């Protein structure tokens, strides 16, 4: 009864949905996202093949650039923001990211540990 009487005080946004902006503003958002993504991609490809930087830093740089670019995609293309109208979407994303880190980190950790504790192949052959 009182449910219908109250005006909606908050509003949610569907994932991928933007606040009500003019068409020009929305196009500008996509252009900014595209330029940032292209810059990050170009940097990744440049870093991967260059001798200019300390070599062991390259994998770390590539991973950081990849995470940055995913962030750019999330913000400018998928419109996932930290606004109160986006709480549900961000929480779902956070849970997804948690599971992804558990799966990848856990797998790499456990398999590296197994590899390190495995006797060399010739020892295994001798045991059989």
């Amino acid at each position, binding site marked *: *009864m*009182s*449910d*219908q009487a*109250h005006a*909606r*005080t*908050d509003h*949610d*946004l*569907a*994932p*991928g*949905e933007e606040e009500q902006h003019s*068409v020009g503003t*929305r*196009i500008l958002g*996509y*252009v900014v*996202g*595209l330029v940032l*993504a*292209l810059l990050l*991609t170009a940097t*990744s*490809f440049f870093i*991967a*093949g260059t001798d200019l930087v300390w070599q062991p830093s*390259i*994998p770390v740089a*590539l*991973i950081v*650039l*990849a995470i940055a*670019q*995913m962030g750019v*995609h*999330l913000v400018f*293309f*998928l419109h996932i923001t930290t606004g109160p109208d986006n709480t*549900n*979407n961000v929480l*779902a*994303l956070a*849970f*997804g990211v948690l*599971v*992804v880190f558990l*799966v*990848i980190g*856990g*797998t*790499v950790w456990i*398999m590296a540990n197994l590899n390190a504790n495995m006797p060399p192949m010739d020892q295994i052959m001798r045991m059989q």
Partner: protein
Amino acid sequence: MAMTATVGHSHADPHHVGLVIEHPGPAPKRIVTAYGFWIFLLSDIVMFSCFFAAYAVLSGQTAGGPKGSEIFEPRYVAIETVCLLLSSFTCGMASIAADVRNRFWFYLSMTATCMLGLIFLVLEFREFADLIARGYGPSRSAFLTAFFSLVGCHGLHVSAGVLWLLTMMAQVFAKGFRADILRRMLCFALFWHALDIIWVAVFSVVYLLGSGV
């Protein structure tokens, strides 16, 4: 009325943080649909993370076969990446065109998205066919198995996305910009952008990291 309102308050705000939401009722269907699709996309990303984990573990297990640095062509990967990026942009343009109900820009942006997606698929198919022709098929080594299943799974998603894209164009052509068609368009845009995010991980981890190590 006052009584129910008080009960409502204590339920909605058990910790007295002051942010009382007065039973806003069910969310609009647009939000429910897109949120459900968002959950699906996240579970799809979790599935991809298993393929990534398998690749990370197996990338060194070449069984005497080729290493990543010997078979990857950074030039083609760069072209594929630019194709997907631009297609994400044109897909965004199509979403805007659908929101303002402009058929011309909708069809134009969707056609551009479709073309870029097809170029991506052709390049990837040629890469796979070339590898298999050289005897480096998925059965050659554990590394190649992981590579083909991860990149192939993404390629399958892009193929499904292209089919969905054509379906959306046909639906807009036949039914116009109805509310349910716009909901599907919202989900399609989410799907296409999510594929681009997965491709960022693929080209960084598989191609760039793989060719360096």
